[in-house]
């Protein structure tokens, strides 16, 4: 039997009658000269994340818009509600005219839009999705070699945690809802500094790994002795155990050195308020932490919620929340749009711009973190006043490791939102050829933005 070792190799053996995994130190043979890429030519990893905000952007019933550029292709103009993207415009593609198609199902307000984008299936009810969200598919493809398969973040400071990531459609991820919580998750107990010269495998992890592995024979025996229904239940349960085993195995490897990874200071607890200035500040703080978590290889896939579909955010001092204003504000005759709605939409989008700027400010290899990632930004509605699921604003930001021909405006006259989702999956290397069901089923990514 011959063995080939690389930086991912884990030594496997028996310890006290139970299996153990032992990582290998980073040997010179695994690295190139400057440590920015691996000697085998592998590029820096590509990360993927979704960024969601509630209540869309401002359209008008007469067809005007505050966000859709008039120019398509490269060099689109910055519309008023996209002002916050100016600094990273060349790294952001704008997708307009895409719609969720409910087929025979009703529009579940503040739900059908993003459910369709994330699952490719128009939901039958407003309490669940009818399939897994595609971020989990991407995590399965590219998220297995990091400490966490995915990180879920909710910056909304809502009364209840908000996550739209699900494998089952019924159980949604439990996101980190505070900056301190996210810091602790990423850099608290269990964090292994990839740049430390004194790295040693954590004995507690070895113990947990051993304990998990020790039950394998019993597990197999149990599986053989139960009926089919119980086998399915057990299989789902053991799948999660196997994922934990894999994560523990990752932590038993000496992490690759990473110049960009700098342990951030622990944030202070901020105020808990859904006012947009507080939510935006929380978004920025959590974006900084997330960016460092990504370059420190704690995860390669994330979901980030700025505000929920039924957004609770409001402008401090106002008695009406943003959600209410989108519905009750009349269109200004002279301006041709809802001015206050548009103003707050700009504030909400400021957070998305800040988020991307944070990703772009972290130098990594020959570029920035944003160059080595893809962020799909999207919302739940188009024209929020009537809960429209047409012309839902969608964005792809980041270079995806050179795969994304960014800085373009792609417009269609009503194509399915799933085309953008499929494009995102393929840009980051998920092995997906088609996505969606019914009228939203598509095998046509948007090739104009694919290098």
């Amino acid at each position, binding site marked *: 039997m011959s063995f080939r070792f690389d930086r991912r190799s884990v030594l496997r053996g028996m310890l006290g009658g139970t299996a153990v995994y032992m990582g290998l130190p980073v040997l010179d043979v695994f690295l190139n000269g400057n440590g920015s890429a691996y000697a085998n030519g592998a590029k820096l990893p590509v990360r993927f994340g979704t960024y969601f905000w509630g209540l869309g952007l401002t359209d008008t*019933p*007469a067809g005007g818009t505050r966000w859709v550029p008039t120019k398509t292709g490269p060099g689109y103009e910055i519309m008023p509600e996209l002002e916050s993207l100016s600094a990273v415009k060349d790294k952001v593609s704008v997708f307009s005219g895409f*719609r969720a198609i*409910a*087929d*025979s*199902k*009703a*529009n579940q307000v503040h739900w059908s839009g993003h459910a369709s984008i994330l699952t490719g299936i128009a939901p039958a*009810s*407003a309490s669940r999705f009818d399939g897994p969200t595609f971020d989990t598919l991407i995590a399965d493809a590219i998220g297995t070699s990091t400490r966490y398969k995915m990180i879920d973040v909710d910056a909304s400071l*809502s*009364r209840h945690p908000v996550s739209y990531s699900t494998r089952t459609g019924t159980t949604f991820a439990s996101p980190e809802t505070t900056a301190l919580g996210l810091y602790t998750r990423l850099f608290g107990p269990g964090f292994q500094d990839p740049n430390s010269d004194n790295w040693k495998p954590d004995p507690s992890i070895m113990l947990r790994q051993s304990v998990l592995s020790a039950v394998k024979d019993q597990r197999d025996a149990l599986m053989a002795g139960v009926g089919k229904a119980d086998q399915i239940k057990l299989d789902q349960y053991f799948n999660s155990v196997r994922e934990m085993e894999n994560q523990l195995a990752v932590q038993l490897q000496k992490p690759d050195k990473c110049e960009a990874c700098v342990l951030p200071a622990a944030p202070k607890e901020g*105020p*808990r*308020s*859904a*006012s947009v200035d*507080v939510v935006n500040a929380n978004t920025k703080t959590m974006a900084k932490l997330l960016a460092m978590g990504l370059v420190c290889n704690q995860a390669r896939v994330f979901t980030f919620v700025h505000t929920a579909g*039924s*957004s*609770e955010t*409001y402008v*401090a001092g*106002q*008695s*009406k*929340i943003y*959600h*209410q204003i989108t*519905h*009750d504000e*009349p*269109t*200004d*005759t002279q301006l041709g749009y809802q001015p206050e709605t548009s103003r707050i939409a700009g504030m909400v989008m400021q957070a998305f711009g800040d988020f991307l700027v944070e990703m772009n400010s972290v130098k990594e290899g020959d570029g920035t973190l944003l160059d080595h990632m893809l962020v799909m930004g999207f919302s739940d509605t188009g024209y929020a*006043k*009537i*809960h*429209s*699921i*047409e012309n839902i604003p969608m964005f792809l930001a980041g270079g995806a490791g050179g795969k994304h021909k960014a800085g373009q405006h792609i417009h269609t*006259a*009503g194509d399915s939102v799933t085309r953008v989702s499929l494009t995102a999956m393929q840009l980051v290397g998920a092995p997906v050829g088609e996505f969606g069901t019914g009228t939203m089923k598509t095998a046509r990514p948007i090739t104009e933005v694919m290098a």
Partner: protein
Amino acid sequence: MRSGRHFATVISAVTVATAFSGAALAAWTKTYVVEWNEPAMYYGAKSGVIDPGTDCPKGTNAEIDWIKVLMDAGYTREEAQWLRNPANPTRSPIHGQNQMAFRGKDRANVYTNPTSTPDPGLVGVSGTIAEGLNLDGDEKTGFTSPTGEKGIDNNFYKALGCWKTYRGPPRLSSGALTFNDSMRNGSWTTVIVVSGRGADPMNDRNVKVGIYVSDDKMVKDGNGNIARDYSFRIKPHAKYEGIVSARSINGRIISTHPADIMLRNPAYDKDLELLRARIDLTMQPDGALKGYVGGYRPWESIYRGWVNARGPVIEALTWVQLPAVYYALKRNADYSPKGSKGEKTHISYALRVSAIPAYVLTPDATRVASSVESYKAIAPQEPERVTGLFALVVDGIVPDRNAKVQAGPNAVILPPPSASNAVESDKQ
């Protein structure tokens, strides 16, 4: 089913059926799907949706000062401000502030007991022009149509035409946009079958119009418009069906006799019951069918429809006090099924309808409907249960099952000092 190839099959079936059925079938049939329908609310301003106009000289009813309303109802200013504060945890971002219901006499629920508060006042239409139909046959009563016809009965418009949810140019009021978007995205489908016995559809003394629902959803074209010429099966429905006798004159189809009908309503309350219903629909050169379906509606169900859509939400979003809607509808009710001396339980109303050509099939989908007939006898019983969000509504509000203190007449409004201090510190 919706392909041109399928259509060819259908046409063959119609031809055969006509050949063998002979006189049982109409001489001609035209079939449509409703691509837009909204209350016929004549807009008298030049543009916008709230601007002053001949219909509402002061424009749309203004936004409500809810602090004042609550204080008038007996709440202190501090309580009123806290109830309207977005940071108040009892104010749901989805269902609104439930305590808003309790502002009647002795803090009665004004949604279920609107007369527990004096009429807050809803400014109605003061113009003389309205769209709709002459329901009572009397040209001396009612409005004048935009084309100069007298006797237009539309007191629904008179009562509620300056309410923001209904006001605006055709297809641009927020209510019309909301419900038609829902319909066009698949919530329901309404189809129309028109048939006649004469040789010329444009001028026929014996016309029947059938209005049905279909479970087949409309399809949008690439521009987001409803596509023509798709196929829809009539769904036999125990409630939603309307059959009206009419005649056509130069393509205008006008009722010859009133009828009692029930249609799928483009509103929160799904039932559009119309007594003594009439139609005025015109066949357009491009093949479309446009005009009005009108009749007398039970006004209390209109009010209840808005209450059941969650009073606090409707009031906040549409700039209205729901008790004012109750009083306005009651004040303008103009019909009693019991006769001229009976209590006015109904109000005149018109629905503005736009339909486009479609293939409307019989319920078994074997052929294009070639006559207007009732399918109620074969309709399954419709469950009365309310589903979705509105199943959660109790007396006009959605109780928060997890709340420590429920809204109500005796609710403690202000938070304990420690909580309010925390909120204040959040603002700093």
